[in-house]
């Protein structure tokens, strides 16, 4: 399932993806708006804490030590999530109200790819929430929330 389709590589976050409902009708969205809303749905507390998860995903998609397969899975997952939204409710994920988006998430969480996609997104959200301020996406809010004592010395520069 993970490798059932390839997806556009260039300019991924800002690109347009077209989703067919199988009857010739198309919907369109961008990966950026899908991922932004998805991550808000999965862990709204990151936004409450002021964590810049959008910037962190940009870091991940360009990171030299995140494998091409993992990056590809994020990209494919965005497309598959929207396909499932169209199949269930005839429109893309971002156009659905909160309760229906939750239904889509529950639906995909029963599949192998969907469970993996949610897990990966949550993992990146947690990385963003608890990474050092040097990465430019958090400022210790996550550590404070969990009363976590950071290890010293802290890094002088981000590892990208």
């Amino acid at each position: 399932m993970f490798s059932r389709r390839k997806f556009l590589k260039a300019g991924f976050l800002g690109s347009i993806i077209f989703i067919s409902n199988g009857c010739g009708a198309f919907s369109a969205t961008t990966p950026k708006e899908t991922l932004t809303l998805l991550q808000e749905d999965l862990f709204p507390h990151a936004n409450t804490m002021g964590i810049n998860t959008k910037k962190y995903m940009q870091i991940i998609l360009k990171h030299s030590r995140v494998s091409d397969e993992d990056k590809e899975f994020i990209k494919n997952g965005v497309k598959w999530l929207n396909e499932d939204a169209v199949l269930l409710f005839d429109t893309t994920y971002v156009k659905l109200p909160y309760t229906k988006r939750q239904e889509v998430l529950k639906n995909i969480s029963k599949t192998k790819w969907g469970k993996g996609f949610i897990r990966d997104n949550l993992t990146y959200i947690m990385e963003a929430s608890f990474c050092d301020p040097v990465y430019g996406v958090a400022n210790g809010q996550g550590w404070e929330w969990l009363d976590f004592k950071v290890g010293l010395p802290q890094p002088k520069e981000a590892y990208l």
Partner: protein
Amino acid sequence: MIYDVCIIGSGAGGSPIAYELSNAGFDVVVLEKGKYYKEEDFSKDEIAVSRRNKFTPDLKDEKHIINEIAQDGSISRYDGYEYSWSFWNGSMVGGSSNLMSGYFHRLKPNDFKLKSVYGEIDGANVVDWPISYDELEPYYEKVERVVGVSGKIKKHKFLEPRSTTEFPYVKLEENGVTAWFDKACEELGFESFATPRAILPGDALNRKGCSYSNFCGSFACATGAKGGARAALLQKCDAKIISEAFVYKLYSDDVSVKKAYYYDKDKNSHTIEAKIFVLAAQAIESSRLLLNSANKHFPNGLANSNKQVGKNLIFSAGGSGEGRFDFKDLDIKQQKSLMQTGLFFNRSLQNDYEFESGGKKYKGGTTDFLFEHQNLLPRVTREFYDDEGDIIWGDELRDKIHKSITSSRRLSFEVFNDWLPTDRCFVSVDDKEKDMYGVHVGVINLYGHPHDLEVGEHLAQKAVDILEKMGTRDINYSISSSPPSNLVAGGCRFGDDPKTSVLDKNCKAHELNNLYVTDASFMPTGGSVPYTWTIYANSFRVAEIIKKELS
């Protein structure tokens, strides 16, 4: 220039040679594949070190092929890159000793004569070592002084004989929960003791003492307190260190090694000539280099006419487990004690280093106890699932994470017992797959003897008894044949018989008069402790031998 000694690999196996020989006035060069980091380069960046694997090679550039051999003999082949299965530890000057936890235990006298004391085991190639504990003891003691080992000697029934009465450095400061542990052990009739650590508790040896940073294992030490090979030895000698130098071939005639060929970071090839070559590139990679250095004199690979190079690869058998302290079982004072960070737990149990079952004497092992690693992400991501194993998100996940991290803490244990050497567990070289240098990659053929699981299970049960006595919840453990990639040895075992061993008792190749192997490759059996102290001690022993030879 012809160096006196060329050392390949700068970890615990190579550095004592560099330290001793260069301080004795010999010209020594060390070739290290990784970069040269120093204390000022290190931080506790969990993302870089633990999530993005900053200190190990990218598997798309350098990988292994893994053949997992089941009990029925069937083989499953895994491409290390495709399956993200890494056997790299620390690719940097000082090697993985930079990243070790520094849990230091000596082998016991019986570990040197496993076959004589405990007898043969079907399907295992158990042998006695060609040296005794008494021959290595002075070097264990030397490591205590030179590298720096801290602890407190407590007499117990398997305490090994010592030439000194106490460690040269006092034990590290401990978390208050250790008192609960000691009490539980006492009630159970177990003899717990403070785990010796290769960590300086205060400034000494021209290094700074431990800063109790709360992050130790898996992270390089920013103070130099941890006795890694770079901080303890290489930075205290004038051996020439060439970093980012990947040795891909040793050139020999029929009696001696003449040159080491290496690629620099730009993949330009260079050669080093020396009178003596010391190979210490980590057990798997040392065998790989010998096999990849085949020539007309040694068509099976260097020092491999008897086809023993790569054979009898071993890991540390055993596994790990944990129990969870929950605030609701503790009073306020106990809760505070539990959540103290920075201080070490440091408790070990060797109550069953040898045990009897069914009238038979068994070799057992060591169990080390420690708090779960302070890295946040494994502790947070573990909460992604509910009791049914379904993934959760949103406020439900938020509350679950917060409760787990702020009102509970897990005490872990790690079991170390012998991984029996067998014909099925060995290193070979793949005839097709190559790394980024164009060099054939190593193949790790994995097989765990069923006996290893029985012993591990016995030891784990004792650890569970302690966790139950302490009142922890959700106790679980796993004993398996999964190899810990940071506890690997064998492949070039030493012995008196040139037909069945690669090295002689001095760790010199039987077939070549100037090639020594001093990483954990030499070990014919592993003992039931982490290997680093023994690797250091043996390397100091071999350094004396080489010094005499050069003199």
